């Protein structure tokens, strides 16, 4: 296995020098009856305070599993983390005791899930569930916790919060439920939020409202945000930098503008070419041939090689490392890296 170089330069908005969260060479595998499913195979990324990292990938790319490993909510077994580090403010969370980890989870790192209806308890009022954060983590009284819950519902712009605090999840619409999930994540003013497909289940008009709210609150609290999504459109709207994942690896990283203008990996290019445009009627769509790989049997060499139009012999034998890419004249491209043997051809060709 090749050593993967540091891909991101530290964000200028860092307040204390080091990144908020650093993931180092993370591996996650699942032991199943059919064999070992290698879901994450050496992922590196970091997020600074106030920064938004978008992790883009299709189903099975390992984007959600990485997030679950960071949160410490993987079921182990069947999951196993054979190697890697997850450093939060410099401390490796994987070597911490369960108690220490518990103090970070929820209070300092919070998560927003895709499906708000199944993430909320249907038999408890939303006020009770929001107040639980304060009662459990801060030992507040029931009355104070409820007052805090109303305040939070106001923050996420739920109309008539005081009147609705005793309502149950089914009495809210999808967009409102997702706001409650955001309120719950924000309750203890965490330093980092991981949002796993936060708007996928919502309609476009509501999606825009929720993303705007999330971005606004992030600025206000100067939080780091990891946005996990498969939607190239949503990413373009809010992210600072992007990490594209394929078969458990990061194949490309770039600041958001750069990625769309000049992708440096054939997979990213294929993805961008395969989505229809809203503002023009195109010709036949470009389609990436084949299917995403079975994680029980990841192809040797570059995992993308069976689907890649540029694949050569070296791609079938050597795993390309995620290395910084440069301009044609050797000029630096800060924050950019690609895991392709032929990145030069892709980026400049």
């Amino acid at each position: 296995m090749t050593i993967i170089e540091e891909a991101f330069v530290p964000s200028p908005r860092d307040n204390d020098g080091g990144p908020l969260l650093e993931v180092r060479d993370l591996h996650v595998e699942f032991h199943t009856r059919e064999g070992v499913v290698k879901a994450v195979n050496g992922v590196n990324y970091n997020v600074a305070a106030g920064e938004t990292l978008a992790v883009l990938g299709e189903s099975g790319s390992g984007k959600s599993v990485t997030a679950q490993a960071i949160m410490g909510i993987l079921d182990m077994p069947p999951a196993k983390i054979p190697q890697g580090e997850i450093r939060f403010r410099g401390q490796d969370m994987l070597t911490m005791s369960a108690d220490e980890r518990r103090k970070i989870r929820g209070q300092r790192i919070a998560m927003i899930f895709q499906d708000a209806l199944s993430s909320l308890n249907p038999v408890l009022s939303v006020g009770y569930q929001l107040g639980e954060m304060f009662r459990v983590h801060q030992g507040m009284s029931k009355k104070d916790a409820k007052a805090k819950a109303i305040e939070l519902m106001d923050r996420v712009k739920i109309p008539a919060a005081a009147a609705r605090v005793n309502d149950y999840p089914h009495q809210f619409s999808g967009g409102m439920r997702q706001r409650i999930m955001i309120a719950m994540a924000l309750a203890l003013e965490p330093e980092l939020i991981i949002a796993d497909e936060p708007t996928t289940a919502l309609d476009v008009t509501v999606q825009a409202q929720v993303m705007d709210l999330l971005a606004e609150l992030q600025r206000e609290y100067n939080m780091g945000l990891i946005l996990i999504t498969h939607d190239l459109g949503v990413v373009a709207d809010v992210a600072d930098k992007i990490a594209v994942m394929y078969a458990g690896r990061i194949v490309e990283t770039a600041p958001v503008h750069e990625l769309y203008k000049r992708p440096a990996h054939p997979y990213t290019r294929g993805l961008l070419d395969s989505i229809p445009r809203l503002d023009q009627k195109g010709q036949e769509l470009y389609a990436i041939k084949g299917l995403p790989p079975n994680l029980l049997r990841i192809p040797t060499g570059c995992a993308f090689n069976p689907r890649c139009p540029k694949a050569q012999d070296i791609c079938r034998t050597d795993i390309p490392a995620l290395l910084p890419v440069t301009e044609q004249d050797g000029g630096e491209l800060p924050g950019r890296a690609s895991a392709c043997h032929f990145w030069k051809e892709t980026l400049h060709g």
Partner: protein
Amino acid sequence: MAELSKNDEPQDATPNVSDVDVVEAASEEASVAAIEATVERGEPILQVRNLVKHFPLTQGILFKKQIGAVKAVDGVSFDLHQGETLGIVGESGCGKSTVAKLLMNLEQATAGEIFYKGQDITKLSGRALKAVRRNIQMVFQDPYTSLNPRMTVGDIIGEPFDIHPEVAPKGDRRRRVQELLDVVGLNPEYINRYPHQFSGGQRQRIGIARGLALNPEIIICDEPVSALDVSVQAQVINLMERLQDEFNLSYIFIAHDLSIVRHISDRVGVMYLGKIAEIGSDEQIYEHPTHPYTQALLSAVPVPDPEAREHRERIILTGDVPSPANPPSGCHFRTRCWKAQDKCAEEVPLLAIPERFKASDTPASHESACHFAEEKDVVHAA
């Protein structure tokens, strides 16, 4: 045509029982003949007029009484021409999937007509209905739940032949199924496999093959690619476009993804709370929308181009879609509309070409259900 079956009825003043049977058989015969006739390319093949579907809301267990109705579809009219794709877009709960079920005659319409080659299919039964059903097929959204996990792919795709044996005689079916697998880009040797052995994209191909089995003229696609990964979506869209050319199909393509709808559609209808807000060619709707809801919807779509996004005007609607059980009076959109005035609460705007654009020949001259229709380009950078 529509009058054909009526004219065939004999003018007998006192028909006896056997006469009625004969009459019905004759009119059925005529209906079947009309259904089997061919329609020229570009002619309307399906005409929907004032289609309404209300689901009753009841109270009480033993003595149920109706206390209201969910107005899922509330007066929808459109034409589908032979060989074209009509896209229907709208948010969840706007009634687009109910329209699909009504067109398939899977739900009984509360009111309104659906003319397929001049025959009102909401009133057909027996042989004539069966003939219509053969010609209108459906591809469903979720390839994971729309295929029976206990049936092989061959049985799934071949099942339509059990109901319509005239399409493929018994001995010929296996070969026919393999042909269909080949047409949708699957290996014909997979005929004995089960659905769980396939990926999402491949399953959707199986669903499409089943839809094609009876050589239909119309395929209704309800969110056919929304459950698929981005890289696989393009493959399925390309396949559907190829099949349309090859078999001269007409599509009704229902989706919430506006970019995909634009790509595949010739004409697009935008639905909101059971009504069509605006309908026109893809260029008219996307480049020259005149209904505020269409404009808001288009401006909210995240575009995968950070540069364009900075120049785009975004209209962020407040609030959620109101409940279809209790829609607002007048224009259904007025509660979220920034242009709403008193008139909008009092008068229901009709779907028609707005008065001010009627005389002109601009692309803004298309049907829009708004009292204050105004053209506004929201998808292009300023």
